[in-house]
Each structure stands twice: as structure tokens, then as C-alpha cells.
């Protein structure tokens, strides 16, 4: 069974809070992950949050809603949210919710993915 993300997973270095998530990011797991992300988004020292989804098995709309909350918390202070390692399904879900325009999504090579409008 995959280990769920916990506050210990994240690391803060030079204003960048990096966190790899594991397993499903869905209704049952979002309440815990949200605490970690919103907690980090509130910290003054955090200028950017980078979330690695490469070991995430599923992302549902509760996960997307959580990302919106995190992004909002950061954007108020001029911070950024970067997502990497998203599966094709997760990318499609974010596109369907039309949020690919506000999240910064990176591919495996670390390049920013630009979506057509």
C-alpha cells in the first residue's frame, strides 16, 4: 500500500517548499494533505510550492479544489504553485476544470507545459 503524504514529506529550501505526493489525492486523503499545503502556503518563508505527482495514483476534483486553495494562498503574496509528474488523466481533469491557466504545470524534463486556450 502506498504511503500517504504527511508533513514530514515536505522540505523547505531557499523559499521553495517541495513535496512529493503518493497514492490517491482524492476525497479520503485530501483533508490531511490540504492541512500540509495550506500550512505551507501561509508561511512567509515559502515563496513557491512544488508538488511532485509522479507517484500519485489518482487525482479527483477534491484534489483539484485543494490545489486551487493552495494557489490562492500563495498568489495573495505573489507566490507560485508548480505541479510536476501529473498523469495524462490528471492533466485532462485540470484542463476540464479550466485551471491549467492558473497552475504552472511542468513535464518530466521540467519544462513548462503551455496549453492552448
Amino acid at each position, binding site marked *: 500500500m502506498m504511503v500517504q503524504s504527511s508533513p514530514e514529506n515536505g522540505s523547505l529550501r531557499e523559499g521553495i517548499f517541495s513535496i512529493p505526493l503518493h497514492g490517491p489525492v482524492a476525497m479520503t486523503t485530501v*483533508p490531511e494533505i490540504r492541512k500540509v499545503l495550506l500550512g505551507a502556503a501561509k508561511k512567509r518563508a515559502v515563496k513557491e510550492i512544488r508538488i511532485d505527482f509522479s507517484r500519485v495514483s489518482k487525482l479527483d*476534483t477534491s484534489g483539484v479544489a485543494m490545489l486551487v*486553495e493552495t494557489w490562492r494562498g500563495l498568489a495573495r503574496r505573489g507566490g507560485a504553485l508548480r505541479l510536476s509528474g501529473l498523469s495524462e*488523466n490528471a492533466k*485532462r*481533469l485540470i484542463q*476540464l*476544470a479550466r485551471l491549467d491557466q492558473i497552475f504552472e504545470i511542468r513535464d518530466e524534463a521540467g519544462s513548462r507545459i503551455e496549453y492552448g486556450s
Partner: protein
Amino acid sequence: MGHRDLIDVCGLNSHYSGRQVLFDIRFGIPDTNITVIMGVSGCGKTTLLRHLIGLKRTRPEQIMVDGQDLGKFNEEEMRNYRRRLGVLFQSGALFNSMTVSQNIAVPLKVHTRLSDETIRIMALIKLNLLGLAEFGAFMPSQLSGGMRKRAGLARALAMDPEILFVDEPSSGLDPITAAGLDRLILELRDTLGMTIIVVTHELESAFRIADRLIVMDRGCILAAGSPDEIRASQNERVLQFLERKADTAEINTAGYLSRIMGNEITRSGR
């Protein structure tokens, strides 16, 4: 192609008040596909839907879900199964005393530990998906028929269901709105990988969205297959349905006259 059957209906019989309405129904529902169940009014498709969503009791060994016997589910197993489902009823089935957003939030508040803000954003995402982002604060009575249907679908999608059941999506809708709803159903399959079961008698809509079609008649399955296979069917009843030919009324004159005359069979009754 390559899809496993998520639900296997394996010899379903059903009765209402002692009268049999479904006869040995057998078919599979492949995952991440759209299965359309169609047939004339009264053919048993809504009864079949009620069995599939657990609203009508099913005897053991007649419906398997992921290899588990639906007829043997205890209360908790049935609750867990229903959590995997989204259902859009023909009427939309919205709570009239709540706004559209509140309607969508209900299942999330009841079944999850998500915060109010997460739920609010999720409702907005679903409303946007259905083209109703501006109407979250509206009451159902303030919406048109097509919008109510879409709001009902937004609520059916609230829990990100793995399996979506849709009862007569096009009924009461104009052709443009109906086509829009069909396109959305296709998008849900493609984007979210949902397994979708649609019950309808609208031919155009059925052929537009179906990966697999089940044609029912008088409580039995007449034909099952891809849209092309159904179009090529030589079954008379299937052809009659596809060509929209009216039934030649089979009138039991003797029975009718017997009833009208007070159970006295007339000599001329045939």
C-alpha cells in the same frame, strides 16, 4: 476493446406484484465505456436501472459488480457501492428548497470530511463543467428544463463517481440542448474515464454516444452490440424500433368485451 466488465448482469429476473417484468437479462457493462440501454416505454429498462443502482432488491447471483454479488451485499457494502455511483434521474431530482450549489454540496457534506471551502470550489468546478457557473445561487425553480437537467447532472457528478447512471437524458430537451448533454457525456467518459450507463428511447442520442447498445423489448434483451452491429440487425422488432414503426395493436377483443359485459363472453368476441 480490452475493457473488463465492471458489472455483469447474469440472468436477472424481476417481478412487480407477482408479475414478471424482466426475463433472464444477461449482458456485461464494460468499464470506461458508455453502455446505452434502449427500448420502447414499458420494456423494462427503468426496472433494470433500479436493480443496477440498488433501488430494487436483486436476488443473489443475478448481478455481479467487480465480481461481487450485488444480491448478497449487506447494508454497508450497498452503501459503499452507492458511493461509487452517480445517478441522474429523469426529473433531475433536485431539492427545490436549496440553491443549485447547495444541491451539489449535499452528498459531499454527507459522505466526506472535506472542508466547506473545498466543497464550494468542487461545486463551482462541476457547475462550470456543465456550463452553469453563473447559476450556483439560483433555485431550481428559476432554471429552464435543460438547465435543471444539467444541474441534476452536476449533482450526480458531485462525488466524482466511478459509474454514472443517466435516465433519459434527452427527455423534454430541445435538440440543441440534448446534443450538448450528449457531448458532455462523451467528454466525461474520455476525460474522467467514467463508466456510463444511459437509459433512453431517443435513437439519435443513443447512437451518438453509445460504445455498446442493449435493445430491450417486453422485459427481454432483443439485441446487444456496437452501434454498427445494432444497425445491421435483422431482428424484426429491432428494425421496427430503429425505423420507428408503430405496433399493430394486438387487441384481445374477447377479453375486452368479456370485461365490459361483466365477464360474460359474447359469441362474436374474437
